[in-house]
């Protein structure tokens, strides 16, 4: 096939990008080379629109062993233990083929983690669907949930937490973000940087097929009517092979024979070989005839661009091939020496004794395009004045019931019961709480993880929204008694070529950066997913933040269910009555304008750290952060989980009941304490200048408000649980 500008454009390259390629090579690329450039230079692999902005994120900290740039981030959890973690998107494939798209998303992120030598110990996910009424939504949910479960369950890794939301902006572009945590010894971490000349380059895992060719390019484009035609670009997962690959890799890693290892994810053999060479400042020579293929007569182009799953590329020490092969034979996996490292600093491919590609590595990586896209700032919207007559007919209990049955608040048990969340025998906090918690096997330590996003806040004001998501992650970890350590982010946005979408990205990233800097909660890994849009319409900006924290002694973990009658319930943090962009405003008043709640980083840090102090002093019986639906929703959930009631009184503030109970002001938690500890707790809170309200006392079975209105907890529980079950069974 003759390569020209049109062929390049068909590969998703821009005309000027094509001329740059010809200039760098000083000739016209052949079709295999063009395929390689298109795979490396697309948005998904090159981060060409985002790199400039991502650089501003804080990525360093005392506990950070490895920041962005590797397969995943690594943090220190003491005693020579480290946690490897990352979140990644698989949005485009999941919309086209929900089961396989979601499954391979989970498979891909687990590979990123065990590539570094870590055994995966927990999975999380953040999934976002269109309006429940949209005709595709139900099938997409079913497919995605089955896919996530199908892969994770088979791997034997517990899925411990997640987030599910609905918004019509995802009607044509659902989001599927998968996160994995792995455990590794600090001195046994493996990296992807190749080193040394003439070292054997090894291919292990599944055979290469024709699936997923140009998957990364598909993920770098918007959708249109013809999207169904892209089905062949979705990869097909085989979790069984991945389980074998995991065990085989970890077995090989016990020895010191691996120099570098990289999983074949997006852009398959192309990006894995090039990344290893680039990081090692070396060349790589590959004989494509040696690559194990599933199908006959695959061309070099197809072999290089296939995104077949469950494959790894390894640079091995000389002479260790035999020993390594034995391990992969034992696990019935393909093992082939396909090439070697060279000093050429080029990627050189041979097929049928002919050289089919010859590209300097730096042209693919360092010289890949980087754009300073135009972007538009979002002004802080004006506050709405909620008129008394709009709310005076509302009864708090009725509103509460509506909110508990809201798709974004209701219980997601239907989903997480389909995920094995207890395998490995260390899950001490299951899905449905503020964060999932797993013990570090055989120790007293435990690791907490949560994933959050607040698309509505980010849409209303990206800068504030970006900050808020990081803070919410911080709060979720603190609510279970964990000290927050670091985050991973999955940045889901519309087209970077649209100034508004690009502006949302830039300002969300700025917000994330400011909050993570202030809270000393650095970003250690992440992923950008642009072009989540159909035709001209992008999704609401949806950065998902995966936070990880440490609990020194798992016996001190906190859960959210109310524990004992007669205990006192307090609200930590000040309630100002911010209603704009709250669930109450959007669903009850149908008011979609106004600014999101303000984020005060000082209060956020101070309130959170003070709560950790209370937890350290064994003063907290249960805790839950206040988010969607405000104080009363948080309290109702604690009642439902603990099967207990509460008698609450609104403190004598200037704001009215509606504002007090449904406002979504930030930096707040609900805590349960023993009455006899009240003075101690109040002293610590006062000493640290943390505002608190005495909200009420735990009683049996009912929720009382100001001694007058009441509702049975069973009724709230049914309301909260039924929505999802009813929706899915209809």
């Amino acid at each position, binding site marked *: 096939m003759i390569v020209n500008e049109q062929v390049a454009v068909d590969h998703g390259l821009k005309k000027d990008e094509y001329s740059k390629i010809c200039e760098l090579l000083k000739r016209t690329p052949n079709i295999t080379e063009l395929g390689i450039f298109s795979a490396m230079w697309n948005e998904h692999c090159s981060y060409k629109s985002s790199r400039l902005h991502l650089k501003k994120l804080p990525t360093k900290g005392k506990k950070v062993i490895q920041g962005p740039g590797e397969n995943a981030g690594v943090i220190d959890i003491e005693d020579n233990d480290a946690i490897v973690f990352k979140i990644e998107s698989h949005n485009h494939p999941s919309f086209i083929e929900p089961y396989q798209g979601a499954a391979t998303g989970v498979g891909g992120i687990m590979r990123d983690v065990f590539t570094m030598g870590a055994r995966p110990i927990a999975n999380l996910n953040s999934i976002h669907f269109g309006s429940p009424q949209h005709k595709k939504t139900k099938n997409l949910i079913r497919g995605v949930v089955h896919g996530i479960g199908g892969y994770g369950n088979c791997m034997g890794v517990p899925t411990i937490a997640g987030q599910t939301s609905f918004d019509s902006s995802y009607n044509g572009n659902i989001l599927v973000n998968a996160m994995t945590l792995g455990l590794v010894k600090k001195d046994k971490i493996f990296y992807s940087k190749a080193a040394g000349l003439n070292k054997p380059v090894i291919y292990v895992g599944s055979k290469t097929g024709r699936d997923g060719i140009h998957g990364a390019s598909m993920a770098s484009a918007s959708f249109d009517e013809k999207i169904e035609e892209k089905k062949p670009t979705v990869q097909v997962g085989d979790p069984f092979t991945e389980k074998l690959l995991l065990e085989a890799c970890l077995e090989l890693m016990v020895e010191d024979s691996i120099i570098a290892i990289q999983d074949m994810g997006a852009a398959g053999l192309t990006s894995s070989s090039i990344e290893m060479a680039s990081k090692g400042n070396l060349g790589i020579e590959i004989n494509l005839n040696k690559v194990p293929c599933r199908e006959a007569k695959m061309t070099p182009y197809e072999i290089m661009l296939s995104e077949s799953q469950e494959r790894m590329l390894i640079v091995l020490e000389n002479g260790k091939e035999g020993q390594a092969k034995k391990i992969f034979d034992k696990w019935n996996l393909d093992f082939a020496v396909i090439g070697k490292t060279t000093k050429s600093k080029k990627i050189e491919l041979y097929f049928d004794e002919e050289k089919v590609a010859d590209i300097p590595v730096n042209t693919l990586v360092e010289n890949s395009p980087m754009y300073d896209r135009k972007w538009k700032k979002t002004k802080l919207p004006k506050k709405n004045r909620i008129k008394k007559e709009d709310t005076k007919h509302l009864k708090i209990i009725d509103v509460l019931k509506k909110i508990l049955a809201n798709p974004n608040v209701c219980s997601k048990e239907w989903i997480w019961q389909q995920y094995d969340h*207890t395998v490995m025998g260390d899950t001490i906090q299951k899905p449905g709480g503020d964060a999932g918690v797993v013990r570090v096997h055989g120790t007293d330590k435990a690791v907490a993880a949560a994933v959050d996003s607040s698309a509505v806040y980010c849409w209303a004001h990206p800068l504030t929204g970006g900050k808020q998501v990081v803070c919410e992650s911080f709060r979720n970890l603190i609510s279970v008694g964990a000290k927050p350590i670091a985050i991973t982010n999955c940045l889901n946005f519309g087209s970077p070529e649209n100034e508004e979408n690009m502006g949302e990205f830039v300002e969300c990233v700025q917000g994330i950066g400011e909050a993570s800097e202030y809270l000393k909660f650095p970003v250690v890994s992440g992923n950008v997913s642009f072009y989540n849009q159909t035709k001209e319409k992008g999704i609401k900006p949806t950065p998902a933040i995966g936070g990880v924290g440490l609990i020194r002694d798992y016996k001190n973990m906190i859960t959210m269910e109310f524990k004992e009658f007669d205990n006192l319930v307090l609200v930590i943090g000040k309630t100002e009555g911010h209603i704009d962009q709250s669930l109450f405003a959007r669903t009850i008043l149908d008011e979609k304008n106004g600014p999101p709640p303000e984020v005060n980083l000082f209060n956020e840090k101070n309130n959170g750290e003070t709560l950790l102090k209370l937890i350290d002093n064994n003063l907290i019986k249960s805790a839950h952060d206040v988010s969607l639906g405000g104080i009363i929703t948080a309290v109702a959930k604690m009642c439902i989980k603990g099967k207990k009631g509460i008698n609450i009184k609104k403190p004598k503030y200037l704001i009215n009941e509606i504002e007090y109970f449904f406002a979504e002001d930030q930096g707040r938690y609900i805590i349960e304490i023993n009455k006899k500890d009240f003075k101690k707790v109040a002293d610590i809170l006062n000493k640290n200048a943390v505002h608190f309200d005495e909200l009420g006392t735990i009683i049996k079975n009912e929720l009382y408000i100001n001694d007058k209105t009441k509702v049975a907890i069973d009724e709230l529980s049914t309301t909260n649980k039924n929505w999802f079950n009813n929706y899915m069974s209809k």
Partner: protein
Amino acid sequence: MKSSVITFPGSNCDRDMHVALKKFGFKNKMVWHADTELPKSDLVVLPGGFSYGDYLRCGSMASKSKIMQSVINFANSGGMVLGICNGFQILVETGLVTGVLLRNKYLEFICKNVFVKINDKQNNYFKNVDSEVLELHIAHNEGNYFCTNDQLKEIEDNNQIAINYCSENGEIEDQFNPNGSTKNIAGIFNKHKNVLGMMPHPERMIDKSLSGEDGSLFFKNLINNLK
């Protein structure tokens, strides 16, 4: 007491079982599916997981692996063989216990705590368990036990039903059946009650920080009965 846990390609509860057996005093060995000889054992466990990816039919390929001939011989000579979840599926495929395990009634994987009622205590697994009802954990996609009417009559006549799904108070009713299994069956014995296949995972319930502690009851009792 010596135990052996078989690891098949795709087993994923083998480590959890190893941890549980060790915790309650067994000297446990991990045995690879391609081995032909079983180490000397008082108990052999086929653990949960997705042996051979559940491809073809759950448990079917594992039932043909090399080690299984030794396990079958061991069982036939009266040795204690316990199959949990995928291990149960492997046992039905070998024919050591009667019946088949179909896909769950609602076609969904289920991971949650359930209650089971012990139907028969005249065996080394449940003899002396100080409780009629246990709270255990299930995590499976194919746990819907099924057998023919003749087979059912036979296992009922021989008292081969080990445990049934039930309420917290031990009522065996449809609403407490998580997967549609015949007669709420959660586990069955072979004729001599030395082989037990069950869907619930006692190894996930051995610590009060986990889902519960009734698994501890099961293992403590098991090792005492074998002594």
